[in-house]
């Protein structure tokens, strides 16, 4: 397999924080510590991986002899399966490990579990956990490459990278794009990672929703808040609603799902006012009829299914860049 790593035109490169990594990256924990070049490299590598995925036999030897452990402390369908498929496509041995609750409930600490997995031969630990910083704790204490597959409300870098990849593939660029992330941004690791990734690549991010669901203290260049979805939706290149959980209404953050949908739901009427070439994305899982209307989710502007399939290529790229042998 050949992997193209040439950089694209400089117009794609953000200017902020775009220092090349001094040494090979050991972990993928948070897009905040990825420069524009680093992100570019992952996206370009994923493009090469798409070529592997187009083959009749979707196998490349990049991780042959390596053990990848999927370590999921929280339930997940697409992320866990996507990482498993990605690792298998690269010929890795994959072990799936899921713990019901938190590490403490289980009786063994997270650090001890991670050390156990490494003692059993893990080269890469992919971790999903309900608490922010869990992947960092593992990375600090276990001698394996760590990929953060979601930690609390903090970060979900592979999801953001596949979102960037999907936007770049469909629109042809990231610089200058206007992206609205709508809904429960406060509790969303996907939104946080997308904010870092998109702004670093020169896109403009609008976080839209009621103040109770926005991280109002977050301040990053290229990012702003907006409460009125109708005021901006006609100007967006991408609109990405986030899952609204029923608990948010029960916890008093929003009065009701009905009121939420009336103001921030991606309804067919609102979509009709979007630009002709604008995209609808959703990180899943969806609550059709709450944050997004079912017909919108399957409309031609929806790229929700490509997000899922691009996820495999992105995760192959991440695995390859962190743990792959030179080919």
């Amino acid at each position, binding site marked *: 397999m050949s992997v193209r790593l040439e950089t694209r035109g400089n117009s794609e490169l953000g200017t902020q924080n775009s220092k090349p990594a001094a040494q090979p990256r050991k972990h993928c924990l948070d897009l*905040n510590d990825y420069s524009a070049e680093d992100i570019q490299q992952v996206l370009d590598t994923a493009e090469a991986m798409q070529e592997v995925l187009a083959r009749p036999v979707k196998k490349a030897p990049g991780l042959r002899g390596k053990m990848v452990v999927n370590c999921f402390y929280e339930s997940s369908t697409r992320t866990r399966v996507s990482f498993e498929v990605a690792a298998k496509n690269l010929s890795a041995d994959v072990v799936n490990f899921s713990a019901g609750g*938190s*590490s*403490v409930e289980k009786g063994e*600490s*997270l*650090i001890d579990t991670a050390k156990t997995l490494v003692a059993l031969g893990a080269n890469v630990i992919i971790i999903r*956990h309900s*608490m*922010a*910083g*869990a992947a*960092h*704790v593992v990375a*600090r204490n276990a001698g394996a490459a760590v990929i953060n597959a979601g*930690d*609390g*409300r*903090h*970060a979900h870098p592979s999801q953001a990278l596949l979102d960037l990849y999907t936007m770049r593939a469909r629109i042809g660029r990231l610089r200058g794009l206007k992206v609205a992330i709508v809904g429960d941004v406060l509790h969303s*690791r996907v939104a*946080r990672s997308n904010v870092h990734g998109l702004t670093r690549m020169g896109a403009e991010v609008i976080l839209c929703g009621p103040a109770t669901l926005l*991280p109002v*203290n*977050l*301040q990053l260049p290229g990012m702003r808040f907006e409460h009125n979805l109708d005021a901006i939706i006609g100007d967006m290149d991408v609109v990405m609603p986030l899952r609204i959980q029923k608990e948010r209404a029960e916890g008093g953050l929003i009065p009701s799902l009905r009121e939420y949908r009336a103001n921030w739901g991606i309804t067919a009427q609102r979509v009709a006012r979007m630009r002709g070439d604008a995209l609808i994305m959703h990180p899943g899982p969806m609550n059709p009829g709450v944050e997004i209307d079912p017909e919108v989710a399957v409309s031609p502007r929806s790229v929700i299914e490509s997000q899922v399939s691009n996820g495999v290529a992105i995760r192959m790229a991440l695995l390859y860049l962190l743990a792959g042998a030179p080919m």
Partner: protein
Amino acid sequence: MLLKNARNRDDLSIGDSKDIIDCRGLVLVPGFVDLHCHLREPGFEHKETIATGARAAAAGGFTTVCCMPNTDPVIDTAGTLQYVLDVARREASVRVRPIAAISRGRAGKELTDMAELAAAGAVAFSDDGNPVANSALMRHALEYANSFDRVVVDHCEDIALTKGAAMHEGAVSERLGLPGWPAAAEDIIVARDLALAEATGARVHIAHLSTAGSVDLVRSAKRRGVRVTAEVTPHHLTLTDEWVERGTYDANCKVNPPLRTSRDIEALVEGLLDGAIDAIATDHTPHALVDKAVEFEQAAFGISNIETAFAQVMGLVHAGRLPFDLVVEKLTSGPCSVFGLELPADDWVLVDPDAEWTVDVEVFHSRGRNTPLHGATLRGRVMLTVCRGQVVFDALREPASGAGCAEVEVPSPRPSPVATGEGGFRLHLSERP
């Protein structure tokens, strides 16, 4: 023992020993008084015991420590209080003054037998770690305790606003995705306590102020004549929420109330200078390794800091922000007046304001090694501690017993553990594990 040539006073003779100690360059001050620490005994002896906590206190220059009642069992009966005093008399090298609980089991439901506890030796009352959420109970606690001249200490936290919170709510918590702890959660309960103190004429003491808002509230209440006193910890005076990010979720930075911002530090320093804040108290909170070696959100709150407290605060002196004499006052006569204690005449600390040392938790006297300052270089060191006329800590003649420290060469410019204006720090943590 004769202490000669100390910078600030005449020679002082202590005990029967004939040793003569040359104190050139050192400063002799009264033993420090800590209004707020956790000795963990009974119930949590794996975190600290009265004996180890007292040794740590001595190493930090503290000769009187007021220990909080969040033990197991809670110090809410005269029997448990007597147990602490008995163990302290047998095993502690410094003076231990227990604080008893306000409510039985610190559950916030019914008052403890305060008169009996006071007679047994309770120096004050606090449900520390828990706020007194019920305002009526707080009112009655203030009135009742004051009728026999004891002060009530409140941990000010509106728990409805801090459910699941792990660090100060602000830009850093948003970046790290950690549930935030708004400053308002403290300010609200401080304001309530001041209103109750004003309404009843009773005294109240506010534990570990951490926000600019609560400093303002206390200051203006004092101006109105409300009988309020307040304390601040060394970590809230010197560390900010950015330490959590710098340490990439280092659970040793997790503390209650949380590390705040440089703006709050400015206000706390101002509060010490103008008298809004009466005392520096450590809130020394030792934990076992397993309490901290977990996910940040699951980690226990607290910093083991009684051995670093003086040097941390000296960072503010060296930065030109607090006068040395004021720091000594806030560690001695200030806390004494809060609890109505006499400053003991035979407790002394010999300090070297300029000595630099590197914090090494491996040689802490405390069982709690939970500090974000491991590897940090601090300036200002306790050299000798005398309690009841006896030497209880001596780094002059027995350097090996030094207070969790090893001397090092320090590159210039000299670092100090003080937040600078723009969120930068002059204290370097290059030797973090």
